[in-house]
């Protein structure tokens, strides 16, 4: 089924809330497409160690590496380093070495590019764009970083370009931050109140920081617009990964609506780790087979499983009703944790049949 979703697609973006198995699903999609002859790269951010090991990624590195997966096509994987991507962007955009060094050595840049909470989202998309421009792969699969809100990453390029367009950035980049008489009383007042609230040092440093960005802003703005365009292209497919738990389903419904409202190409939903149930157990038969004590334990455990299966189906029914005709794939809760190539292969039949 996934194969149909990804026909003629060059980019597959897997989104969803934390803990639903996004990294695993992204890797399984990439492996499955590679097994079907495609040259695929999966981009992931800081996945758990063993999956990384299985994919041949022992450490953070900002370059794709070939995974020896024994497939007809090629599987490549990359673990994104947000800070390095940011540095690379600066190097790319800087008009000369002096500007580059001024930014890279700026105290604020160093503090923020390390701690930057929103940078992962933007950098993931930035890297995606870079790889799609290079055009070495048939398909790129992006495992989106865990965000508070599954959609934060969608806003990242727009926020960046809006900020660059804003008057405040122009102000900050103007020399002599506090001699801004020409800009009118309102702005001056805002600055003077800000001085009181923050302490002057911080604002001066910020001004210096943004000034050193100077000539690069146009490049950044252009780039952010293009990254945004990539998301809406017909060769891009969004896949929502969810668990059958109520919170994840609610978030999935919201996600679907937002994508539709934004006119972004939504391919379908993967409901991961769905508990499978069965008909009621016949207690008498279990007792005959196993004896009273063991039969009671088996019965209890089975009833627990059935309750969970009913809960999962009720939640998925809700999801189906709200999603209309959007296709949905159920991947059952497998007996073993999925964390290596074998585990990923076990998911294949559910994703691709």
């Amino acid at each position, binding site marked *: 089924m996934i194969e149909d979703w990804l026909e003629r697609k060059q980019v597959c973006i897997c989104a969803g*809330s*934390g*803990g*639903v198995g996004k*990294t695993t699903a992204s890797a399984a999609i990439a492996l499955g497409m590679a097994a079907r002859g495609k040259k695929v790269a999966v981009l992931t951010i*800081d*996945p*758990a*160690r*063993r999956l990384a090991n299985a994919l041949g990624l022992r450490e953070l590195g900002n370059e794709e590496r070939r995974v020896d997966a024994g497939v007809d096509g090629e599987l490549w994987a990359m673990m994104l380093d947000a800070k390095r991507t940011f540095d690379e962007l600066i190097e790319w955009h800087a008009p000369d070495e002096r500007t580059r060094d001024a930014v890279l050595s700026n*105290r*604020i840049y160093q*503090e*923020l590019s390390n*701690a*930057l*909470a929103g*940078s992962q989202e933007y950098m993931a998309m930035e890297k995606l764009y870079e790889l799609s421009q290079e055009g070495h792969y048939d398909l790129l699969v992006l495992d989106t*970083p*865990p965000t*508070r*809100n599954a959609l934060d990453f969608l806003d990242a390029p727009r*926020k960046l370009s809006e*900020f660059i367009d*804003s008057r*405040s*950035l122009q102000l*900050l980049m103007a020399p002599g931050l506090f001699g801004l008489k020409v800009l009118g009383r309102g*702005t001056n*007042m*805002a*600055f003077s*109140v*800000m001085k*009181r*609230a*923050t*302490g002057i*040092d911080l604002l001066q*440093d*910020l001004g210096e920081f*943004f000034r050193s960005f100077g000539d690069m802003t146009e490049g950044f703005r252009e780039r952010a617009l293009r990254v945004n365009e990539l998301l809406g292209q017909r060769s891009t497919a969004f896949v929502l990964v969810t668990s059958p738990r109520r*919170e994840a389903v609610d978030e999935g419904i919201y996600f679907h609506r937002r994508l539709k409202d934004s006119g972004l190409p939504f391919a379908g939903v993967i409901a991961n780790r769905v508990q499978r149930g*069965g*008909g009621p*157990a016949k207690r008498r038969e*279990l007792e005959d*087979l*196993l004896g009273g004590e063991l039969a009671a*334990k*088996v*019965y209890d*455990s*089975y009833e*627990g*499983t059935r*309750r969970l299966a009913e809960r999962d189906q009720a939640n998925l029914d809700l999801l189906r009703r709200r999603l209309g005709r959007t296709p949905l794939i159920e991947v059952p809760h497998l*007996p073993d*944790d999925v*964390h290596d190539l074998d585990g990923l292969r076990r998911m294949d039949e559910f994703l691709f049949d």
Partner: protein
Amino acid sequence: MSALLDRRLVVVTGKGGVGKTTVAAALGLVAARRGRRTVVCEVAQQERLAGLFGVHDVGNREAELAPGLFSVSIQPERAMHEWLRHQLKSGALAGLLGHSRLFGYLTAAAPGVTELVTMGKVWDLAQAKRRTGGSAFDTVIMDAPATGHALALLRAPRTYANIARVGPIARQAGSIDAFLRDRSATGVVCVALPEEMPVNETVDLERRLGEDLGLEIDQVVANAVLPERFDAGEVKRLREAGTGAAVAAALIGEQRTRGQQEQLARLRAEIRAPVTTLPYLFEPEPLRRELELLSDRLEEAQ
């Protein structure tokens, strides 16, 4: 855990989807039962906590969920406004600045501001004399976001203390940072599931907390641990019986339980912090009754 709940602030984090909110609520119940005036604060704008107690539409209020147990949802914009008002000693000036587009862009552009004001609000809740008014709390439990964002939150005060060097931001960020690093004031709980990736993330969190911030995890809570129902002899009999959906489900359950036990052993081996377990709940969604059960288990765990 007793010592843990004597701290003024307990930060609860862990990988996404492991049950942080549930554990934060259960810890809150334990603290409140001991007579400590307790508030659980949500920072991810999810407002799920009150729902667990059947209380709805709490908005910005400090809502009482159970005797002595309150919840509050921290909204960065509001926290920023409170901070400005305190800083400028004037609601009007704070309003002027808060509504200035320039200021809005600046705070959006200087990443980490949201994290800083959020931590500032959490810190304020944990002070005996609160800047923003309101009665003091004995214990603040922070239902923090998943590990990556939690680290960004905990790091923000230090980042800003370093950037600002002098002035009011440097001073306040420095105080918050010192409070977070004072082990008699702040504790860290990491929630995990007994599965490969959550265990890895917990191990990783312990390392990064130590390296980046000099913090330690005080308690690991392994959540949703399946019951060990069958002994080896029984498993053998089940394999031999081998028929029917119920027996098959029992054997799959057994396989999962074994997998979990291996991961629990690995967690205990690789983590310095003590590990306590909470049972898997075979209920549709955790509600008040289940929360009580979990908090009983946390109390017993000492």
